[in-house]
């Protein structure tokens, strides 16, 4: 029975982030946390495998100490246990640091037959953690997966790569990154939510992971982000008569030199 691990990130909900129009700085003061979009798919896929084949799913995350708030949401989606690493410096971490921390935690909590991740996180969208983890753990990495089958140690997957798809096979253990289209994440039921509170979750103290100072020092420093504002004409025709609107739009296209 497979022993699965799924890594996830608890991110700020980008819908709650506002751009301050005066200096284009970001205002995240009213933003709440959420489970990163594609990580929902990774958690769902791991849970589906467990529900079909038995075994266990551990969920693992690294984030600010507030990441503990994610425990109930994640466990209600299926995983059997949750491990979290809280670090006040996590908001400065880059993919290098995140991968180092997760790999160290996996060495401590593992081994696992399969490690699943989302394609990229909703906030930074680095798309690096799966391949970095695989390199650090010396495992094969199957990235950008839209279909996954696990039979014993053999993993068969369909990868979607933009210019085509390919079917691949590896013998586990392996790291897999999943795409959004791989499944439709569940909306947890009441029993699943209630069940979540009975499942174990524990903090893995960062200090206990045996990481050196250098491994926790980001290689990439993010300067303060600036909002991207679109400046468009916003001329909207909303007459009750569709033909009138169409006439006006055609005239506008003509004026822009975009007709014919």
């Amino acid at each position, binding site marked *: 029975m497979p022993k699965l691990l799924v890594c996830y990130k608890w991110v700020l909900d980008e819908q*709650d982030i506002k751009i301050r*129009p*005066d200096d284009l700085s970001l205002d995240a003061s*009213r933003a*709440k946390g959420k489970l990163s979009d594609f990580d929902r798919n990774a958690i769902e896929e791991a849970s589906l495998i467990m529900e079909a084949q038995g075994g266990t799913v551990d969920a693992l995350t690294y984030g600010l100490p507030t990441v503990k708030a994610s425990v109930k949401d994640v466990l209600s989606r299926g995983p059997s246990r949750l491990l979290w690493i809280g670090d006040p410096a996590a908001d400065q971490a880059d993919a290098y640091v995140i991968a180092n921390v997760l790999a160290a935690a996996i060495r401590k909590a593992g081994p696992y037959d399969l490690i699943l991740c989302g394609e990229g996180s909703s906030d930074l969208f680095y798309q690096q953690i799966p391949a970095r983890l695989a390199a650090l753990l010396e495992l094969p990495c199957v990235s950008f997966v839209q279909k996954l089958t696990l039979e014993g140690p053999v993993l068969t997957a369909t990868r979607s790569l933009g210019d085509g798809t390919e079917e691949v096979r590896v013998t586990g253990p392996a790291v897999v990154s999943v795409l959004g289209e791989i499944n439709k994440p569940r*909306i947890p039921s009441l029993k699943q939510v209630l069940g979540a509170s009975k499942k174990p979750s524990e903090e893995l103290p960062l200090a206990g992971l045996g990481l050196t100072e250098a491994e926790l020092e980001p290689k990439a420093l993010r300067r303060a982000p600036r909002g991207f504002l679109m400046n468009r004409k916003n001329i909207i025709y909303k007459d*009750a008569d569709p033909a009138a609107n169409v006439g006006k739009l055609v005239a506008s296209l003509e004026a822009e030199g975009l007709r014919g």
Partner: protein
Amino acid sequence: MTIKRMSPEELLALDRFNVDEGNPHIHVDKTLCARCQSRPCLVVCPARCYQLKDAQVAFEYAGCLECGTCRVLCSDKGVTRWDYPRATFGVTFRNS
């Protein structure tokens, strides 16, 4: 930036919605609405979910604020079913 007159669309654009596509939480019977003379829904709905199109009441549940006013005021009971949206769907207030 300052306070300005905003269209209903601009007001609703301030809010967060997670629309339960294809699964309306309010059901409106158009034949009953066609007979209705008073049509209070057109003015009392604070999200302007009810609008007159081709002399008919057209209903769109996507921007619903879930207040219930349309159901309470509906004179000919054209609002045949009014539920809260399924859990996790609908409007989410963060600052009210």
